């Protein structure tokens, strides 16, 4: 099991490093978002307006981390569809390797690799706060080891959950067109029903009700509460949000395993 998993993880890695355009764009896009949107949307206001974040850009940058983890996951299923088209998945299925490995290797790799641009955004946002002429994220809380750990786990779990979902679509669907149709359908609704980008108090109440349960919001809450030490603005401590996120992930990954198994079953 481990040898097979290792072989497929290595394949994922080799494919990744041989696609420099994808690497560069996946790193550049969130950076550009941060600089273009972040700087442009620098609304006035302080911690009272932004759930404890010292300003909008700080609030926004934390949300961007969750957003990047989501967008990085959207493409993982597309690779599966292309691999299927090239007979690579069939080749894997003809080996004695456990079916679960065929599903787990892209899930693990893609989720870990999503952390790179996600935390690049966070680091860059902190850096921008120190560059004259730019606004950036100011950490006002005392994050600590536990806080940092919670943040990494929250982003990783969010990436795992969406990767599992979109990989399952990749295994289940046959054409790139239908896959991108689904991505297009889900991407923005997931983002815009979360509190990742828009500030509290903006928009209708029902949207905020939904946003409270959105997994991207739950992840971002863990970040914001830790980064800005703003527990007084949130009804729950970060661990509660993390647990809720884990519940979401458990449900999504179970669904993905069911879909993935069905797709890999011998017809």
């Amino acid at each position, binding site marked *: 099991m481990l*040898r*097979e998993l*290792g*072989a*497929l993880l*290595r*394949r994922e890695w*080799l*494919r990744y490093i*041989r*696609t420099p355009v994808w690497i560069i764009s996946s790193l550049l896009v969130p950076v550009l978002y941060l600089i273009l949107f972040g700087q442009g949307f620098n609304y006035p206001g302080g911690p009272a307006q932004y759930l404890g974040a010292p300003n909008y850009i700080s609030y926004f940058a934390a949300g961007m981390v969750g957003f990047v983890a989501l967008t990085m996951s959207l493409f993982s299923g597309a690779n599966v569809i292309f691999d*299927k*088209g*090239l*007979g*690579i*998945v*069939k*080749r*894997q*299925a*003809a*080996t*004695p*390797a456990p079916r679960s490995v065929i599903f787990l290797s892209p899930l693990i790799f893609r989720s870990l690799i999503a952390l790179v641009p996600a935390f690049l955004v966070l680091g860059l946002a902190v850096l921008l706060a120190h560059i004259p002429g730019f606004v950036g994220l100011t950490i006002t809380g005392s994050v600590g080891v536990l806080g940092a750990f919670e943040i990494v786990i929250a982003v990783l779990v969010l990436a795992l959950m969406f990767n599992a979902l979109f990989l399952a679509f990749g295994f289940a669907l*046959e*054409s*790139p067109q239908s896959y991108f149709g689904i991505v297009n359908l889900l991407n923005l609704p997931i983002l815009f029903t979360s509190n990742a980008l828009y500030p509290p108090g903006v928009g209708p109440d029902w949207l905020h009700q939904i946003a409270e349960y959105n997994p991207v919001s739950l992840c971002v809450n863990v970040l914001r509460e830790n980064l800005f030490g703003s527990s007084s603005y949130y009804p729950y401590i970060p661990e509660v949000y993390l647990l809720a996120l884990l519940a979401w992930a458990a449900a999504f990954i179970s669904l993905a395993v069911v879909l993935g198994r069905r797709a890999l079953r*011998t*017809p």
Partner: protein
Amino acid sequence: MTDAIVCENLVKVYGDIIRAVDGVSLNVPEGEAFGLLGPNGAGKTTMVSILTTLVRPTSGRAIVDGLDVAKHPEEVRRRIGLAFQVSTADGELTGRENLEVAAGLQGIPAPEARRRIRELLDQMQLAPAADRLVKGYSGGMRRRLELAVGVVHSPKILFLDEPTLGLDPQGRAGFWDYIRHLRKDTGVTLFLTTHYLEEADQLCERLAIVDHGKIVATGRPDELKQRTGGDTVVVKPSKGEDLTQILSAVPGALAVQVIAGAYRVKCDRGEAMVPLIVTACDRAGVEIVSVEIRKPSLDEVFLELTGREYREEGTEHSGWASERMGQMRGGRS
């Protein structure tokens, strides 16, 4: 001798309509090179897919190395090797890396895998290109790599699905040499599908000719060729006249058959028959478009058994998405 492969009344129906495999029974003794020969769409790939556990049979049984493929798919996968019709190598990886991934998926420990891969790269004459990306490989190199991937774990039984599809005649002949060497060195049981008659003739000790999911004949290539019994002279009249009587009356004509408007005269020596036939037609006032001598060949066997001309039509895939996606679903060929 024990049988490496046994099929008992195997049936695969797709979507309740298409009987891709329609009651196939066959057996392949250990160490034999067995071929399924038939045109595109005859059900050959479906047969391979069933025997390699990629497609479940609708009914009937398939036993590979003593194991029922439907009941013990994982055990079967351990014992078999497979080279697909279309190269399944990852173009973004080097040849060596592709083999390393394949060895890992077979659970071979790294040191052993490295040694085995070196050996295979040498055997397949891929060593100089081993560390180049596969997307730069020629068609022949890809086929050899596909074969190497299929045998990386030294399987007991090797399935080759149209192994030389898309190769030019020279590349094809070269590839046959690799397979012959492989068989000599390892004694592997070979189950091969092809729609190239020459390939079946060259590589297989025994053949089954398949058409529309059914076996229409089984035997050694020379046995099958003898079935046509001597030469055939094919005569085409210009206006579709009925030549049966005229041709039957020609001395030396053993039998006359009409297939698709062409008259096929069986005889011992075609060369001796041609002038007699031409004279007979001339005397009867029938104009003929062509006269052709056909020596016994698998083409002739196929034609006589199925009533259809065997055509090795162009096999290059047009849109990869449609065709290869079709294969993904356990496609038929």
